């Protein structure tokens, strides 16, 4: 039987009819809660659970960052593609026009400067297209940035999951805990990032290094 199946069995057994609201029940519930709290504290579960819960708002902001970053990348790519296609269409139209003028009167096409203008226009347009392609390439950096964030959020989810599994183990009937595999409890450790002690752009990096004499 898998650990998740065991966990399911265990949680299913926990679902029982609600107790009546008598003072004895509340007293008993209080004792169990205290016992549970003491046990959890001894096991060191509570700090882990608290850490995981504290990490949640950060996880939300990280996920929002991913949404924003991928959205910006998509916007950049689509805008650059639109611009590059526009340049491409201009080149096609200009090429057709110059081809017609060469066919009609080759000498005049050269003498009037139309041919040279065309060459200059194409060169300028290809430079602009190249800049758009560079923008598209740079927009792909979202993969690296969002990948790192997803890894941290997944680690946080794993920590939370482990804490909840431990909580369930403590809340389960005495004969249940041993049925869970030990490796389910080994969670990753989150290394929360500092809040104010970070730079927000390259200029701040340069200023910091310069202030330190580097």
């Amino acid at each position, binding site marked *: 039987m898998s650990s998740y199946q065991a966990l399911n069995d265990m949680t299913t057994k926990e679902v029982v009819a609600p107790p009546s609201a008598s003072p004895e029940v509340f007293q008993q519930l209080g004792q169990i809660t205290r016992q549970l709290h003491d046990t959890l504290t001894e096991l060191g579960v509570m700090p882990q659970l608290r850490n995981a819960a504290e990490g949640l708002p950060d996880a939300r902001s990280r996920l929002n960052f991913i949404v924003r970053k991928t959205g910006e990348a998509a916007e950049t790519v689509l805008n650059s593609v639109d611009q590059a296609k526009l340049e491409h269409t201009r080149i096609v139209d200009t090429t057709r026009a110059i081809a017609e003028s060469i066919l009609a009167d080759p000498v005049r096409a050269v003498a009037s400067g139309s041919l040279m203008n065309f060459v200059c226009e194409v060169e300028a347009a290809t430079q602009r297209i190249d800049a758009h392609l560079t923008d598209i*390439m*740079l927009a*792909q*950096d979202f*993969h*690296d940035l969002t990948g790192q964030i997803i890894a941290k959020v997944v680690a946080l989810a794993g920590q939370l999951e482990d804490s909840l599994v431990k909580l369930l183990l403590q809340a389960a009937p005495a004969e249940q805990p041993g049925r869970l595999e030990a490796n389910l409890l080994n969670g990753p450790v989150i290394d929360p990032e500092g809040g104010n*002690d970070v*730079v927000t*752009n390259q200029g701040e990096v340069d200023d910091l290094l310069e202030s330190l004499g580097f």
Partner: protein
Amino acid sequence: MTHSTDLKFLVVDDFSTMRRIVRGLLKEMGCSNVEEAEDGVVALARLKAQSFDFVISDINMPNMTGFDLLKAIKADAALKHLPVLMVTAEARKEDIILAAQSGAAGYIVKPFTKATLEDKVQKIMLKLAATA
């Protein structure tokens, strides 16, 4: 003075997309002699097996981080002359200071622009030429 276009670069990043971006930008800067490594361990092996002029490294990587790679390079008599430019998403001031104190030649935070990379590479090369 050695022009950056003549240099052999090693780009170290665990994300292949970022390696391709840096390689592409270097190519646009005229630097086509670029090799890649996916982490510090592979990078260090490449550096010991071949001759490179410039290392551009991420920090947060599996197996061996960019910090450990930087320290290993600076601790190796045959490699310590190599300029190491850190290109990373780590924006904590303590990381930037640690990188500088560990011997990094420069520090770029992601996301960055082509102009930033070009500026840092050129400045590092000018500094190296001035001290040579």
